């Protein structure tokens, strides 16, 4: 097998993981494709030490996360202030219409449920989606998120809280207090 063929096999093994990481942070198909391509071009330069290395997945995920964040800061920071000002603070402006079925959680098949979670996540404003994804999927701490996004710790906590609240409403998640109230 030639080096190019080896690399293509390596890429096919990890392309979904890299694309998912970028897509969940950027919420834009073509931007996520561009970032994924850049990640693999960088991976090719380091292929000698990545091939057969069990840490390759972690390396790719970290590079995909960093490149997505760079992409966001490069192209979107100029709009972030007013997007947060005019887009409602809790993401109401971006709410898609979903059927108002109380038993939706039981009724939905797993694939539909995943599609709903994915859609809701992608409809969140970037200011909420990005820290939420970094916290829950990339498992970064609040301080790390604040440092990588260049915002205050309290803003990170507030944005994550608001993002969770939107997800709670959309996914009809119920807890003890809600059940007692009902």
């Amino acid at each position, binding site marked *: 097998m030639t080096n*190019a063929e080896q*690399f*293509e096999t390596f*890429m*096919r093994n990890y*392309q*979904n*993981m*890299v*694309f*998912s990481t970028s*897509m*969940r942070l950027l919420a834009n*198909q073509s931007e996520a*494709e561009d970032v*994924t*391509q850049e990640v*693999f*071009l960088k991976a*090719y*330069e380091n292929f000698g030490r990545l091939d057969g290395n069990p840490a390759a997945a972690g390396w790719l995920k970290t590079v995909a996360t960093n490149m997505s964040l760079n992409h966001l800061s490069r192209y979107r920071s100029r*709009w972030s202030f*007013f*997007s947060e*000002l*005019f*887009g409602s603070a809790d993401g109401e402006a971006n709410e898609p219409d979903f059927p108002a079925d109380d038993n939706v959680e039981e009724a939905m098949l797993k694939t539909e449920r*995943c599609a709903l*979670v*994915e859609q809701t*996540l992608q409809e969140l404003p970037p200011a909420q989606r990005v820290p*939420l*994804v970094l916290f*829950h*999927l990339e498992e970064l701490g609040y301080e790390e998120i604040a440092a990588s996004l260049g915002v205050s710790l309290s803003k990170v906590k507030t944005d994550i*809280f608001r993002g*969770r*609240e939107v*997800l*709670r409403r959309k*996914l009809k*998640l119920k*807890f*003890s*207090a*809600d059940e007692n109230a009902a």
Partner: protein
Amino acid sequence: MNLNDNEQLKLAISRELKSLPELTAPASLASRVMAALERRANLPWHHRSWATWQPALQMASLAAMLALFGGLCFAGWELSRTETIMSAMHRAGQLFSGLNSIGSLFNILAGTAVLVAKKLGSTFIIACLVAAGLGYAVFMGLGTFYFRLAFAKR
């Protein structure tokens, strides 16, 4: 929502997000990357990034750059001590003496501005600055609003 519910929500969201399957990358992605790699491989070595050059070439180019830099520094030092350069620098100084009059003009303008500011009073100046700031914010806000309107997801 109490603290316990917050914790439950955190766990529930983690569970929901972690249960998501990986998204499928577009089928064309691999061929796009391979094409980009091929284009990159076909570039002549001097068009590629320095980091990808052969180590010997990197060393040679580094040595050449250092030698060039050192040579330029030495030549600059030697030239600055020669008679011709000294007189050329003197002439250049005379040529740029006109800049002094531009500097004094700015001084006069700044003095006038200070006098006008004193005459108008600080309240008026602050009001002007606030109005300018508000105008800028409205301009940015409207621009952002129209941008979001034009590129809103449909």
